[in-house]
């Protein structure tokens, strides 16, 4: 079973594990940034807005092509790739977006991003209050 953790910790683990990922942002369904590796707040905000626009464009494209619901995408450029994974959780949709170096190992990047989302999605239940487990008497020490 996956260990529950907050978004910042999940992001730190992701960047430590995946050498291909350059920058990552985790966003909730309302566009609120839960965690990001982009230090500058303004740039992080612009990045998240760009990802939202990308998702809208991709959604239009999906409808045009008659595909079922969009779950993830990769946009590859000569300078690097942008990966976006969308996943429903108990507390609503979560989106993780990452940039990588050029010609990344696509399957591996998607796996790492999904793993990161999975590791945080059960940390916050639907009412937004983190779940707590009662400590056993023996755990106090």
């Amino acid at each position, binding site marked *: 079973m996956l260990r529950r953790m907050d978004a910042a910790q999940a992001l730190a683990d992701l960047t430590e594990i995946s050498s291909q990922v*350059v*920058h990552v942002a985790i966003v909730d369904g309302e566009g609120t940034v839960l965690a990001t590796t*982009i230090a500058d707040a303004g*740039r992080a905000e*612009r*990045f998240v807005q*760009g*990802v939202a*626009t*990308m998702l809208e*464009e*991709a959604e239009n*494209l*999906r409808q*045009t*092509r008659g*595909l*079922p*619901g*969009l*779950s*993830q*995408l*990769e*946009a*590859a*450029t*000569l*300078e*690097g*790739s*942008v990966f976006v994974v969308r996943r429903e959780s108990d507390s609503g949709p979560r989106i993780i*977006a990452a*940039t990588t170096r*050029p*010609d990344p190992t*696509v399957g591996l990047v998607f796996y790492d991003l999904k793993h990161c989302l999975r590791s945080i999605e059960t940390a916050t239940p639907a009412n937004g209050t983190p779940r707590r487990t009662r400590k056993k008497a023996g755990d106090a020490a």
Partner: protein
Amino acid sequence: MPRRFLTAMMLAAGSLAGSVLYRRRAARRLERVDLYADDGSMASIAAGSPDAERLVTLARELVVLAR
């Protein structure tokens, strides 16, 4: 002498043109948008098609922004 020079020039021009064509084709193959659906299906759209151009442009901006 002029004939040798002409041959060398033609070879050089041919190599240059070939290299440019190869790079263009490689770039076209590399730049693309892959959309993955819930059911596991995937649509790959090459850059250059009007559908993908807007997404690839956005991706370029994001990659530069996140550097």
